[in-house]
C-alpha cells in the first residue's frame, strides 16, 4: 500500500520478452498507431489480426526499427531499444538485431544465390567466416527441404521456396523473436502450406513470434494468443479460443464475420 511507483512500472516486469508502451506513430499528420501497449512473454506466439489499414504492418515495421515513432518505448528482454525522444527515434541496433522479420513481398536479393542471401549478413554483420556460415546455411536449408536449391538464384525459385529461403535467411542470425507480416498472402494457394509448415516447425521449437495473417486455419493452429487491432488501437487481446471463438468485443465479432465468415 502507498507506493504508487509499483502501480505503473515504466517497463514490463522482468519476465516480459517484448514490451510496447504507449506507442504512437504517424506518417506525417496522419496518426496510424494511436497508443499501443503490448507485453509479450517468452515462448508466446502472437497472431495479429485486423482490417486492412489498421496498422498491423506498421506495428511490425516499428518493432523492426524501420519507422520513426512519435511517442512511446519498446523494450526487448528488458532493454529499451526503440525510444521516442524529442521527436527523434532512437534505435539500439545491438538489441534490435535479436529480432528477425520476414516480409509479405519477396525480398531475396536477386543478384545473390540462395546461399549468398543466407550468408551475407552473418559474414558482413556478425563477422562469421564464409565457410562456417556456409556450413550452417546448408544445414538449415537441409532442414527446410531446400538443399537442392542452395545454388539457385531467387528468380529460379517458386514463391513458396522464396519465402522459405527468406525465413532461413532471418534464422541465420539466430533471432530470439520472429516477426512474420502476411508472408503467404502473395503466394498461389497451393504454395501456402509449405511456408506455413516451416513456421509451425519453428513454433514447435518454441520460437517466440508475432504473426500477421489472414489465414484462419493457420492463426488457430499457431497462436498462443491473438490480438485484434483496428484503426491503430488494440481492441481485443486474449487466447485464441476467446478472440477467435468467442470474442468479447462487438468489433472483433463483426470483423470475424465479415472477413472469415465465422459466426460466433
Amino acid at each position, binding site marked *: 500500500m502507498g507506493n504508487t511507483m509499483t502501480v505503473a512500472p515504466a517497463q514490463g516486469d522482468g519476465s516480459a520478452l517484448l514490451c510496447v508502451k504507449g506507442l504512437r506513430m504517424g506518417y506525417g499528420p496522419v496518426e496510424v498507431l494511436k497508443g499501443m501497449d503490448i507485453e509479450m512473454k517468452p515462448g508466446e506466439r502472437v497472431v495479429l489480426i485486423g482490417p486492412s489499414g489498421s496498422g498491423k504492418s506498421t506495428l511490425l515495421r516499428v518493432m523492426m526499427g524501420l519507422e520513426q515513432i512519435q511517442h512511446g518505448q519498446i523494450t526487448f528482454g528488458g532493454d529499451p531499444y526503440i525510444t521516442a525522444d524529442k521527436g527523434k527515434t532512437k534505435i539500439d541496433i545491438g538489441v534490435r538485431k535479436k529480432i528477425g*522479420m520476414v516480409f509479405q513481398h519477396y525480398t531475396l*536479393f536477386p*543478384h545473390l544465390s540462395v546461399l549468398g542471401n543466407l550468408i551475407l549478413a552473418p559474414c558482413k*554483420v556478425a563477422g562469421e567466416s564464409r565457410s562456417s556460415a556456409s556450413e550452417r546455411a546448408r544445414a538449415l536449408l537441409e532442414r527446410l527441404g531446400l538443399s537442392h536449391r542452395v545454388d539457385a538464384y531467387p528468380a529460379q525459385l517458386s514463391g513458396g521456396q522464396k519465402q522459405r529461403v527468406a525465413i532461413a535467411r532471418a534464422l541465420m542470425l539466430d533471432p530470439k523473436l520472429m516477426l512474420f507480416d502476411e508472408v503467404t498472402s502473395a503466394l498461389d494457394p497451393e504454395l501456402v502450406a509449405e511456408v506455413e509448415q516451416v513456421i509451425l516447425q519453428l513454433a514447435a521449437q518454441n520460437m517466440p513470434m508475432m504473426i500477421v495473417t489472414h489465414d484462419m486455419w493457420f492463426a488457430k493452429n499457431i497462436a498462443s494468443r491473438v490480438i485484434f487491432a483496428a484503426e491503430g488501437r488494440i481492441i481485443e487481446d486474449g487466447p485464441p479460443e476467446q478472440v477467435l471463438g468467442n470474442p468479447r468485443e462487438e468489433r472483433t465479432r463483426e470483423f470475424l464475420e465479415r472477413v472469415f465468415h465465422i459466426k460466433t
Partner: protein
Amino acid sequence: MNYTFDLGAVTRNFDVLLQGLSLTLQLTIAANIVGLILGFLLALMLVSRFALVRGPATAFVEFFRCTPALIQIVWFFYCVPMLFNVFIGSITMAVLALGLNLAAFNAEAYRAAIQAVPREHEDAGIALGLSPLQRVLYIILPSAIRASVPVLLTNGIGILQQSALVSIVAVPDLMYEAKTLATETYRPIETFTIVALMYFAISLPVSQLVGWLERRRPA
C-alpha cells in the same frame, strides 16, 4: 540502272580500311571505359540527397543528352583549344568527346537501375542488420549494376556508330578511311556498302546479346 558493282578497288585497299577499323574499335573501347566509370560516378551524384551534388551532375547529363553529338565533337575539337588554350592529341580528344557523351547516357542507365531497386530490399537489409554503407555496397549497387547491363551494352554499341562522327575532324577512323578511299577510287557505293557491313557485323552480336540478356531477366 546498269551500274556494275566492282569490289576490286575496295579489296585492293582493304588494309587501309582495317587500319581505320582498328582505330574505330580502339576509340569505342576507350570511350566505353570512360563512359562506364564516369557514368557510374555521375549516377552516384545524381541519386545524392544533396542538391549541391546532384546539380552539377544533372547539368552535365542534360548538356550531353540535349545537344547533337556532332556538335559536341566539333565543339571539342575547335572551341576547347581556343577557349581554354589546351591542346591535346586528336585521338585523346575523340576519346574524351565520345566518352563524356556516353557517360551522360550511362549515368542515366545506372541511375534508373539504382532507383528501381525495390524499397523492400532496403528494408530487408536493415532487418538483417546491414549498415547503410553495407546496404549500398552489397545490395543496391550490385543489383542495380546487373539490371543496367543491357542498357549499358546498348549505349556502348551506340558509341561505335557515333564514333564515325569523328571522321569530320580528320581522325583517321574507319569512316574517315572510307571517305578517303571512296574519293580516290570513285567507288563510293562499294566502299560505303562494305564499311556499313563492317559496322553491322560488329554491332549485331552485341545487340543479340542484349536481347538474350533481356529475355533471360526475371519479370
